[in-house]
Every structure is written in structure tokens, then in C-alpha cells.
């Protein structure tokens, strides 16, 4: 049988009455969707190549372009939807493992949307953030400290190193290689302005960005790309990546096409070869082994930097977190299954792991039950989409939240999910110089600062409404949440009451 025809997912609609043949669409589309017919001189499109990144639509000066879901579909079947059929045909054709990017688009439940926030009425007045101080500053790190006095009777500072955040949001790990130089610069500059941190991901740190060190979290992953003394010393904190929400249980895989000279140098691997991170750290098979790596990092950095351990939200994450909290780590980051990625096997992304809401609540509960919650701070990630998601995460027990996808969207990402191709038209998930320069780091930083500043204002307003004037007083305050449309089991895991139930 010859190759199976797979209809295009999208159709590019061009309104000829509006098109002024400026050619911008041809120039802007790295996928090669738009072209001029050599014979007729007319503008035409190859729908098959369209990934729906919306770049042409956004840049078209006369708004002559629209992208629509293709009308050419398979026979209607609720069980065998178009995407499933496409995937099956592709695999029959190639024998390959399906590869996707960004977070899962599947319609699995989002518990944030079933949690509602409390507000004060009559008996305990709300606080007006316009006129009262409203504290969103917080610290991440181990909070247990022995009271030790020196010979003069003065208290010695025995507190473990802390990360100070002016907002309860950090930028999640996204590696140089999977995203562009300009993305890292935008994140670094925004983190500096906002008084928070960005995370290098596992691809090392470009030497140009060492100057942002005090706002940088560096990652040590199984591939150990770019990890050496200066890298650890430059950073404000070191994150050991054990897992990622989009692909729990497997390692990273950056296609060779994205390993340019600069990326190769930062990662220390040959140009053009695939950058493979093993699934596990091959020196970590137990909590004791993890403790060893935590202390290797601490020894290398003179115990001056908090060590974060990042895990994917999986079935047993509460017990795992309990182990991590005893390993010497200062912070645990939990990444939910809706979290994004530059490339992950589709089946793993869409089927492995659990939602961040349930994972976070169960981890916080477990650590409190065991009396070790203060051993660590918690960062929640894995699709935090808005200020209310942040607020609810804090009320469920998080100290702060990682945002990755949301940050990329502020930089122009339209969630087309074709990051692995390396042809990102928005200059984000690409290393092609002509595409990278489409993202201006100054403009990028400004947009990120705008986003987080706006979220912070909203958080302050909601906190004020609850009569809470410090984000740290909201942490784990689950009485501020009520559930709707949730089962008894879900409510029990989340530790919240149903809407309408009072104390």
C-alpha cells in the first residue's frame, strides 16, 4: 500500500480581497506554509505544513489570513477521534514513538477550576490593598533552626540559606537548547526586575548570563549538562532534577537539529548530536543516594545555597517527598502532569503522572502529619495559568509556584506544540538565528514583568478580600478554599470542604 494520506489538521484561509501581496506571510513562516506560485504569481498555501502557531495571522498587516480547523476529517466517530486516527496511521507508517511538545492538551480535569476562594463578609473585615501593606514577599528554604547563643549571649544565625522572593512566582526550568538565547535573556532580566528567579533547566548556563547569577537557579539533571564549579557558584540555588511533570520516569531528549555550536559548547557535547539525559540519575537509586548528591552540591558550594529537588507528580509522591525532606534538601519542587516540555513521547505526556493539585495537597498533608513540613519549602508547577491558580496552590500548601508555559506565552508562544521541530516562528523554541531574533529580550522581559506584576496585584486583592495580609499566612490555609463538582475522595485528598459547608 502506498503512503496513507493524512488530511491536514488546519486550513489557511486567505481573503483575497484583503491581501495586498506584501509577502510577509511567506517570509515569516519557517514551516513553509505560504508560497508564491511560480506560474501564476499568486499566493498559495500548503495546509499540510501548518502547525497553527498563528504567526502569519498576527503579522498580516491587512488581517487577510485566518487559520481554521480543517473541514477534511475522518468519518465521525466519538471513540476514534481525528487525532487518535492520525496517530495510529503515523505509527503504522513509520514504526516510531509519537513525539509531542508542550503540556497535554487532553481534556483531563483541572482541579483549580473546581476550587473556590473565600472572602470576608461583615465579621472579619477585608483589607484594602490600596491602603494597607500587603506582603507577597516570601522565603524558600529550610525553616528549622536551633537557637544557639555565642559567648556574649547573642543569638547565632543558624538558619539555613534562604531564597528571597518578592512575588510568589518563579520561572520554571527551561533549558538553553530547547529554548533560545533570547528566551533565557528575557527570563533572566525579568527575574532580576521582579525580585524572583529563573531556572536554567538542564542545558547549562551560557557565559553571557553569569551576571544574572543572583536571580538564577541552576539545574543538575541526569545528563549533568554544563555542570561545573563556576556554574554552581554563580547561582542563587541549585536544583536537582529527578523528574518532570510532562514526562515522569524518562529523561530528556533534545534533537540534534537544535544542538548548534553555542548550545553544544554550553552542554559540552558534539554539534548536531542528540542531547540525551538518562531516565534516572545513574548514581541515585535511593533516598540515601539522593542525600549524597544533595551534600555533594552543598560541599561544592560551601553550604551557602539552598538545594531544590524537583520531582514529577506521581502516585507515590507524598512518600517520596517525605524522603526528600529528610535528605538535606531545602526545597521540593513538584511538577504536575499538565506541565510543559520541549519534547516528550506523546503517550507519556498524556498518560503518566497525576495532577499538581492532588499531588501538592497530599505532599503538604504528609509532611505536616510527619512534623517535617518546616524542613523544606514547596514549589508547585505543572500548569499554573493565572494568579488564582497561584493563590489556590498557596492555600493548598505551596510556598511559591513555577510558571513555564505561562511565561513562554507572555513571550509570544501560541501553544502550537511543535517545539521539537526547532522552527518556532516566535523565536522561542528554536536555535535558528533568523527566528531567534524575532524575540527582543527587552520587550520579552517587559512582557514577563507585566504578567507577573499583574498577577501579584490580583493575588494581593484576593488576599485582602480574605482578610489576609501576608502570603505566608495563606500557605496551607485550606479553610480558604471550597470545592465544587468534586467527589468525597477528591475533597479528602485536597483537604477542603464542599462549597456551602461551613466550619
Amino acid at each position, binding site marked *: 500500500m502506498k503512503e496513507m494520506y493524512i488530511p491536514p489538521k488546519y486550513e489557511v484561509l486567505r481573503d483575497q480581497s484583503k491581501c495586498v501581496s506584501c509577502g510577509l506571510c511567506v517570509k515569516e513562516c519557517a514551516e513553509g506554509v505560504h508560497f508564491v506560485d511560480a506560474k501564476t504569481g499568486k499566493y498559495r498555501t500548503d495546509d499540510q505544513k501548518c502547525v497553527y502557531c498563528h504567526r502569519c495571522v498576527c503579522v498580516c498587516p491587512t488581517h487577510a489570513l485566518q487559520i481554521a480547523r480543517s473541514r477534511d476529517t475522518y468519518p465521525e466517530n466519538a471513540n476514534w477521534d481525528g487525532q487518535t486516527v492520525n496517530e495510529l496511521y503515523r505509527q503504522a507508517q513509520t514504526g*516510531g514513538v509519537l*513525539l509531542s511538545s508542550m503540556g497535554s492538551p487532553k481534556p483531563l480535569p483541572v482541579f483549580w477550576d473546581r476550587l473556590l476562594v473565600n472572602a470576608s463578609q461583615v465579621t472579619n473585615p477585608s483589607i484594602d490593598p490600596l491602603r494597607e501593606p500587603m506582603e507577597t514577599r516570601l522565603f524558600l528554604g529550610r525553616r528549622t533552626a536551633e537557637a544557639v547563643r555565642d559567648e556574649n549571649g547573642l543569638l547565632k544565625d543558624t538558619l539555613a540559606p534562604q531564597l528571597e522572593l518578592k512575588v510568589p512566582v518563579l520561572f520554571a526550568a527551561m533549558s538553553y537548547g530547547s529554548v533560545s538565547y533570547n528566551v533565557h535573556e528575557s527570563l533572566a532580566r525579568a527575574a532580576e526586575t521582579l525580585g524572583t528567579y529563573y531556572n536554567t533547566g538542564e542545558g547549562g548556563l551560557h557565559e553571557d548570563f553569569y551576571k544574572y547569577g543572583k536571580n538564577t537557579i541552576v539545574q543538575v539533571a541526569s545528563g549533568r549538562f554544563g*555542570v561545573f564549579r563556576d556554574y554552581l557558584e554563580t547561582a542563587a540555588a541549585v536544583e536537582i532534577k529527578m523528574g518532570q511533570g510532562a514526562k515522569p520516569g524518562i529523561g530528556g531528549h533534545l534533537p540534534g537539529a537544535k544542538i548548534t555550536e553555542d548550545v553544544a559548547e554550553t*552542554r559540552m557535547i*558534539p554539534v548536531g*548530536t542528540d542531547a540525551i539525559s538518562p531516565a534516572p540519575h545513574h548514581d541515585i537509586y535511593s533516598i540515601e543516594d539522593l542525600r549524597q548528591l544533595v551534600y*555533594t552540591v552543598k*560541599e561544592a558550594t560551601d553550604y551557602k545555597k539552598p538545594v531544590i529537588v524537583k520531582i514529577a507528580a506521581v502516585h507515590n509522591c507524598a512518600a517520596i517527598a517525605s524522603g526528600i525532606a529528610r535528605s538535606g534538601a531545602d526545597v521540593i519542587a513538584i511538577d504536575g502532569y499538565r506541565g510543559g516540555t520541549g519534547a516528550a513521547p506523546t503517550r507519556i505526556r498524556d498518560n503518566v503522572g497525576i495532577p499538581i493539585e492532588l499531588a501538592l495537597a497530599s505532599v503538604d498533608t504528609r509532611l505536616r502529619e510527619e512534623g517535617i513540613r518546616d524542613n523544606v519549602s514547596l514549589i508547585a508547577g505543572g500548569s499554573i495559568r493565572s494568579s488564582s491558580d497561584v493563590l489556590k496552590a498557596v492555600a493548598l500548601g505551596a510556598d511559591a509556584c513555577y510558571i513555564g508555559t505561562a511565561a513562554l506565552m507572555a513571550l509570544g508562544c501560541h501553544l502550537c506544540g*511543535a517545539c521539537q521541530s526547532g522552527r518556532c516562528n516566535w523565536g522561542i523554541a528554536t536555535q535558528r538565528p533568523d527566528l531567534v531574533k524575532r524575540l527582543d529580550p527587552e520587550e520579552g522581559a517587559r512582557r514577563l514583568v507585566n504578567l507577573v506584576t499583574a498577577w501579584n496585584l490580583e493575588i494581593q486583592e484576593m488576599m485582602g478580600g480574605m482578610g489576609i495580609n501576608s502570603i505566608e499566612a495563606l500557605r496551607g490555609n485550606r479553610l480558604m478554599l471550597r470545592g465544587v463538582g468534586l467527589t468525597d475522595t477528591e475533597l479528602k485528598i485536597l483537604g477542603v470542604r464542599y462549597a456551602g459547608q461551613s466550619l
Partner: protein
Amino acid sequence: MEKIIDAAGMGFAELNRLVKTAAEKKIRIERCLGQRYIACGLKDKEIFIDGTPGNALAAYLDGCRVEVAGSVQDATGDTMNAGTLIVHGSAGDATGYAMRGGKIFIEGNVGYRCGIHMKAFKENKPAIVIGGRAGSFLGEYQAGGVIVVLGESGDEKPAVGNFCGTGMHGGEIYLRSERLPALLPPQVRAEKIAALPDGAAELVKSWCAFFGRKAEKYLRSAYFRLTPDSANPYKRLYTVN
């Protein structure tokens, strides 16, 4: 001047603090017994260790010479960046994990997972020379650098264990052996070579000099050279969705 530290009964934190803060360039640690993280991230020192250091010796090492009269444990030279480590004994598991530079010379055997994910770029080219045998998973995910296994063991067992070079996508492994190891993954290309190339020969000569062996014997032997069989061994596995 040499600083001498008697490590008997000393915890790792205290020992490492003494090493780090020593004004002397040369340090001699005596009666070492299982202290972890010695020389972690250190540079510009010469450290001699008498005894058995604990795990993660010379992790992130950034340019020291570390010599051990005794065996070493797991995660030795983890993510080492520069320097030289000489072990007059055997090494445990995950030796030289993700090494980025420098050289490790082991007189005896190494455990499992040695040299996993070693890297190289331009002038930074790490190397591990193992006098005895290597356990399974040697050079897994190797992305650069050189591993030489001399296979000196006094018995007929193969020089390396199973799954040597699985996921290898750069660098090279030299095995002094008459026959290929079992279960060599399909992504690894093996060729019998008549003589070691200059770089590997120099490493073998250094190893011989450190451990008082005659280089001639090792240079004249039969070797297999293992390299990745294509630049992108896993590319075909994927179908873009």
C-alpha cells in the same frame, strides 16, 4: 610545605573544611576512612590520601591532583571538570559520571556504570584509564572523551560487563581484549585495531608510569575500539505528532 591531616575519627564536614581552608598547596590526609566529598569542587591543590575515602571523592574537581593509596568508593570524580585522579586500588560504581575534563587513572577494577555520560568539547577531553576490569554499563550515554580498559585481571573473564556503551553518542572506548564483550548494543560500532592511536597510547603510558608498569606490554596488545555508529542513534525512533 605540606599540610598533614590525621583523619582518624573525623567527620566529613570537618575534614573537608580543613582541606578547603588549608593555606598549603600540598595536603596529605592520613588514616582516611570513608569520609565523603573529599576535594569536592577543589582546584589548585595536590592531595595525597592514605586510606579509603568515601563516596563522591573529587566530585566537580576543578584542577587538583588527587592520589589515593587505597581503593575508592562510589561516584568518584562525579562531573569532574579538570585535574588528575590516581587510585592505587579499585573504584566503586559510577566512577567518572558525566566527566567534562581531567583524567582518572585506576590501577585495579571499576564497578558498574563507569564513565556514564562523559562529555567533551574542543580542548576539554576527559579520560578514564582502568587497569583491571569494568562492570556493566561502562560508557553508557557517552557523549565524548576516552575510556581505556586494560583488562588486567589474572583470570579469563571479559574486560567489561554487559551493555557496554548503551546510548553512546560520542567519544571512544578502547578495550584491551582478544574478544568483544557480550551484549554490545547495536548503536555501538566495534573495530579491532592494530595499534592504539597517539592520544590513547599516551594515556596508557601515563597509567604505566603512575603504577610502575612496563608500557611496552600494553601498547603491543590487541584492542577493540568502540564508537557510536551514527551521530544520531535514536533519531529514527520518533514520529513527530
